[in-house]
C-alpha cells in the first residue's frame, strides 16, 4: 500500500458542460519520474491542479504518503511538500532571483532585536547552495529581466525546491525551450530524481517521456487509458493510446514541385516600437508549391518578418515583392486582395473579433465586398450561408452553430475558424505563424495535412514555428533565424534537427 508516495483514487472533476477527470486512479512511487501524457483537454493539468491545491475533486480521495488529505490551497500543497513548476512563469521581472524565490516566505531577522528586516544575505547563500547541488547554475543576485527563458524556468524550479518540495510537478516544461535547452532541463529533472525527489511530468511530447520517464499514465478525454512502463512501450503505441487511434507522426507528403516565384523578400529591415532593429537584412524567396519554414527561438525577429509581409508592421528598409509586384508600402487590405492569407500567432487578439459570432468572423476579410455587401449595406443571409458551408467544410465545432460567440469556442476550433477563413481567400501566399501552438495532436496532424494540401495546389507557404519537429516534418526549405538574421537557408533534407538547433542558437556560422 504505502510504496506509493502519491495516490489519487477514483478522482472525478466536473466543469460546467464537461467532465475533466472521470474516475481516474493513479499511484506514484517515491523517487520516480512519472509522466502524464495526453492531448490538450485530456485532463492532465486538471488532475495535477488538484494535487497542487488549485481545485478540489468532486469525488474521490487523495493520499499523500499513505495519509488521506484534502488539499485546499497551493499553500496547503506546499506544506505537504508538493511544488508545481508552471508552464507560464510567475516571476517579478524587476526583482532578483533570490527576491523572487523568497517572496512570501521571506526569512526575517530583527535589527537590534526590534526592527524586522529581510535577511537577503543568508537567502542568497542558501539559494546558491541549492542551485549548485542540483546543477542549476544560476546567480541568485541577477535580475529576472536579464535572464533567458530557460534560466527563468530554473528559477521556478528553485522556487519549489526552496520551499522544500519533494514532489515536483512540471507542467509542459519544454514548450518554450530549444532542443539544447530541453536536453539540459531533462538532465536536471533526472538529477532531481537521483537526489530522491519524486517528479511528475505533464507533457504531450513523446520523445521526452521516452528519454527520462520511468512510468507514464495516458489520459484521453478525462479518462485514464493505461499506465505504461516506458522502457517496454514504443512511442507509436503511446501516441496511439493518447489519441485513441492510429496517428501519423510523420506527415505523408509528395515530393515538392516548385513552380514560379511568388514571394521575394529583399534586404528586409524592420524596427520594433523602441526603434531597435529586430529584422536585419533578410532576403529569401518562396516559390509556388513550396513550404518555406523559418526556424528559430522565440523573439528572434521571425514574427516581425511575417507581420512585415502581411503589412501589420512597417518596413524600415528593403523590398517585398508578391508575384513580381512591389507591395512594400501597400495597405493591409491591398495585400490581402493581392493574394496574402495570414494565420497570425496571436489568434485571440489579432485573428478573431472574440465578441462577434462565428459567421461574422469567417467573413472577416470579405465582409465589405460582394456578395457580402452591396453599396455599403450588409447582406446577413450571405454571411450565414457562407458560414454554414465553412463549418461543414472545416469541421468547426461550436455550441450554437454560426451564431456562437467565438470567445466561447475552444482554442482548436478558433484556429480552424481562422485557417478555414484564410484558405477560402485562395491567396497565392499563405503565412502560418505558430499554427499548431496550443492545439492537440489530432488537430496538429490535420493542420499539417491542410498546409501540404494547399502547397500541392500550388500555393506558396511561409511557416513560422518554434516547434522544430513541425518544421522538420512539413517544410521543403528551412531558413534559420538568429538575432534578426537568417543564418542559413537550405532544403530540409540537407539539414538535421541538431544542425538547425545549433544555427538557432547562433552557434554555427558559415
Amino acid at each position, binding site marked *: 500500500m504505502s510504496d506509493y508516495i502519491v495516490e489519487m483514487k477514483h478522482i472525478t472533476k466536473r466543469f*460546467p458542460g464537461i467532465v475533466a477527470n472521470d474516475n481516474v486512479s493513479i499511484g506514484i512511487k517515491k523517487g520516480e519520474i512519472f509522466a502524464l501524457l495526453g492531448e490538450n483537454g485530456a485532463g492532465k493539468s486538471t488532475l495535477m491542479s488538484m494535487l497542487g491545491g488549485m481545485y478540489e475533486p468532486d469525488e474521490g480521495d487523495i493520499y499523500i504518503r499513505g495519509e488521506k488529505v484534502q488539499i485546499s490551497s497551493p499553500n496547503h500543497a506546499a506544506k505537504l511538500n508538493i511544488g508545481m513548476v508552471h508552464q507560464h512563469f510567475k516571476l517579478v521581472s524587476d526583482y532578483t532571483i533570490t527576491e523572487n524565490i523568497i517572496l512570501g516566505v521571506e526569512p526575517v531577522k530583527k535589527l537590534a532585536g526590534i526592527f524586522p528586516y529581510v535577511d537577503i544575505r543568508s537567502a542568497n547563500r542558501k539559494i546558491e547552495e541549492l542551485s549548485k547541488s542540483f546543477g542549476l547554475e544560476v546567480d541568485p543576485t541577477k535580475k529576472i529581466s536579464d535572464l533567458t527563458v530557460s534560466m527563468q524556468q530554473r528559477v521556478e524550479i528553485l522556487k519549489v525546491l526552496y520551499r522544500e518540495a519533494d514532489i515536483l510537478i512540471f507542467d509542459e516544461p519544454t514548450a518554450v525551450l530549444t532542443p539544447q535547452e530541453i536536453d539540459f532541463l531533462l538532465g536536471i529533472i533526472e538529477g532531481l530524481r537521483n537526489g530522491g525527489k519524486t517528479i511528475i511530468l505533464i507533457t504531450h511530447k513523446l520523445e521526452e517521456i521516452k528519454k527520462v520517464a520511468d512510468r507514464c499514465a495516458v489520459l484521453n478525454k478525462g479518462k485514464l487509458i493505461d499506465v505504461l512502463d516506458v522502457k517496454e512501450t514504443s512511442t507509436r503505441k503511446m501516441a496511439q493510446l493518447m489519441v485513441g487511434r492510429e496517428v501519423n507522426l510523420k506527415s505523408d507528403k509528395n515530393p515538392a514541385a516548385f513552380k514560379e516565384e511568388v514571394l521575394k523578400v529583399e534586404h528586409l529591415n524592420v524596427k520594433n516600437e523602441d526603434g531597435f532593429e529586430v529584422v536585419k537584412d533578410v532576403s529569401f524567396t518562396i516559390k509556388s508549391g513550396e513550404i518555406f519554414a523559418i526556424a528559430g527561438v522565440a523573439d528572434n525577429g521571425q514574427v516581425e518578418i511575417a507581420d512585415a509581409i502581411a503589412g501589420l508592421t512597417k518596413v524600415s528598409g528593403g523590398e517585398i515583392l508578391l508575384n513580381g509586384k512591389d507591395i512594400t508600402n501597400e495597405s493591409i487590405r491591398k495585400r490581402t486582395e493581392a493574394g496574402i492569407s495570414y494565420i497570425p500567432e496571436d489568434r485571440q487578439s489579432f485573428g478573431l*473579433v472574440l465578441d462577434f459570432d462565428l459567421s461574422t468572423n469567417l467573413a472577416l476579410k470579405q465582409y465589405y465586398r460582394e456578395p457580402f455587401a452591396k453599396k455599403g449595406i*450588409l447582406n446577413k443571409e450571405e454571411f450565414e450561408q457562407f458560414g454554414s458551408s465553412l463549418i461543414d467544410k472545416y469541421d468547426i465545432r461550436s455550441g450554437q452553430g454560426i451564431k456562437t460567440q467565438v470567445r466561447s469556442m475552444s482554442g482548436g476550433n478558433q484556429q480552424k475558424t481562422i485557417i478555414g477563413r484564410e484558405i477560402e481567400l485562395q491567396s497565392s501566399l499563405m503565412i502560418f505563424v505558430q499554427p499548431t501552438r496550443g492545439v492537440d495532436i489530432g488537430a496538429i496532424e490535420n493542420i499539417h495535412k491542410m498546409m501540404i494540401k494547399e502547397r500541392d495546389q500550388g500555393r506558396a507557404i511561409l511557416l513560422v514555428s518554434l516547434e522544430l519537429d513541425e518544421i522538420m516534418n512539413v517544410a521543403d526549405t528551412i531558413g534559420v533565424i538568429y538575432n534578426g538574421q537568417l543564418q542559413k537557408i537550405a532544403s530540409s533534407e540537407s539539414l538535421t534537427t541538431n544542425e538547425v538547433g545549433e544555427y538557432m542558437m547562433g552557434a554555427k556560422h558559415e
Partner: protein
Amino acid sequence: MSKVKRKNNAKNNLIRPIRDEKWQPVTIPLVAILISFIAAAIVILIIGKNPIQAFYNLLQGAGILPKPSYAGYKSMLTDFLSLLNAMTPLVFASLAVAVAFKAGLFNIGVSGQMLVSGFLATILVGYSGLDAIIAKPLVLVIGMTAGGLMGGLVGWLKYKFNINEVVSTIMLNYIAQYVISFFIQMYYIDPVSRQSQYISEAARLTLVNVEMANLKMDLPLGFILAIFTAVFLKFFMDKTVVGFEIKAVGSSRNAAKYAGMNVGRNTVLAMVISGGLAGLAGVTYYLGYFASIQPKVLSSIGFDSIAVSLLGNSHPIGVIFSSFLVSIIEQGSTYMSSQAGIRQEISSVIVGLILLFSACGAYLKHKVSSLKDKELDQKESES
C-alpha cells in the same frame, strides 16, 4: 430533501424571469430598475413618507398619470409634451455616448460638444432675423457640424498622438466652458437674466405655448428627429459596412487592423458621429428646451447621458426607453416634492440608484449563468 436544495430551488424561481439569454438585454435592466425602486422606496420610508404616493406623484408630474387639478391652459397632455421636450436632448446625448462606446471610445465630452454647438447656433442663427423655415434646419446643420468637428478632433488626437479620449474630452469641456462664458459675458449677456440674450422664436426648435384646443403646449420638433435618428442608428450599426467596421474596431483594434480595416479612419469617424449627435443634443437643449445659455455652466445632461446609455445597453432603441424613464423621474420631481413633501433631491437619489444598479447588470448576468450551471450539475448528479 435537503435544505440547501430547497434554498437553491427558491433561488431558481427568483431568477426564472431573467434566465433566457436572448431577452437578457431587456430583462436585466428591468430587474435593475425594479431593485432600485425598492431601494428608493426604503429611502423614502426612512424619511417617513409613503413611497407609493411619492412614485404616483412622480408619474403625475411627468404627465403619465392625471393630476387632480390643472392650472389654466394646462392638462396631462401639456405635461407629457414638456416631458418629451426635456427628454429630446437626453436621447441625442445618450446616442452620442452609445456610438462612441461601440467604437471602444468613452466620450465624456458630450457637455462641451453640446455647449460649443449650442453657442455657435445661437450667435449664427439665433440672433439673426432668418425665417423659421431656413433658421430651424440651419440650427440643426450648424449643431451637427460643430459637434462633429469637435468630436473628430478628439478622434484625430487619439489616432495621431494616442491621446486618451477621456483626458482630451474633459480638457476640451473646460476650454469650451470658459471660452464661451467669456464671449457670452462680453457680448451677448442679458443684464436681467444674467444669461445670454434670448434667441428668436424662428430659430427655436421647440414651438412654445402653441394654442390648440384651449391648451397652451410646447411642441418639441427635435423629438421626432431624435426617434428617427435612433432608428437610423440601429440600422447603421447593424446593417452597414461602416457600422460593422466601427463595431469591429471597438471590439478589437488589433483584429480590425489585421482584417484590413482602417482603424484610424474608423476611430475619427465614430467620434465625428458621436460629436454630431452631441451637437444635436446641444441645439435641442440650448435652442429648444431653453432659449439661452447660462455662462460658466456645463449641462449635466452630458454626464447623465453616460449612465443613461449604460442603462440602455448602448443600444439605440434601448437608449430611447432609458432616457424616457430618467426624464420621467427628473420631470416629475417638482410635483412630487410639492405634493408629498419630499425634497426634490430625492429624485436625483432615485436616478442615482437606478444607474448604480444598472451598472451591476454584468454581475447579475454572471450570477444567473452560474446558478444555471449549478442546476445543470444537480440534474446530472441526480440522473
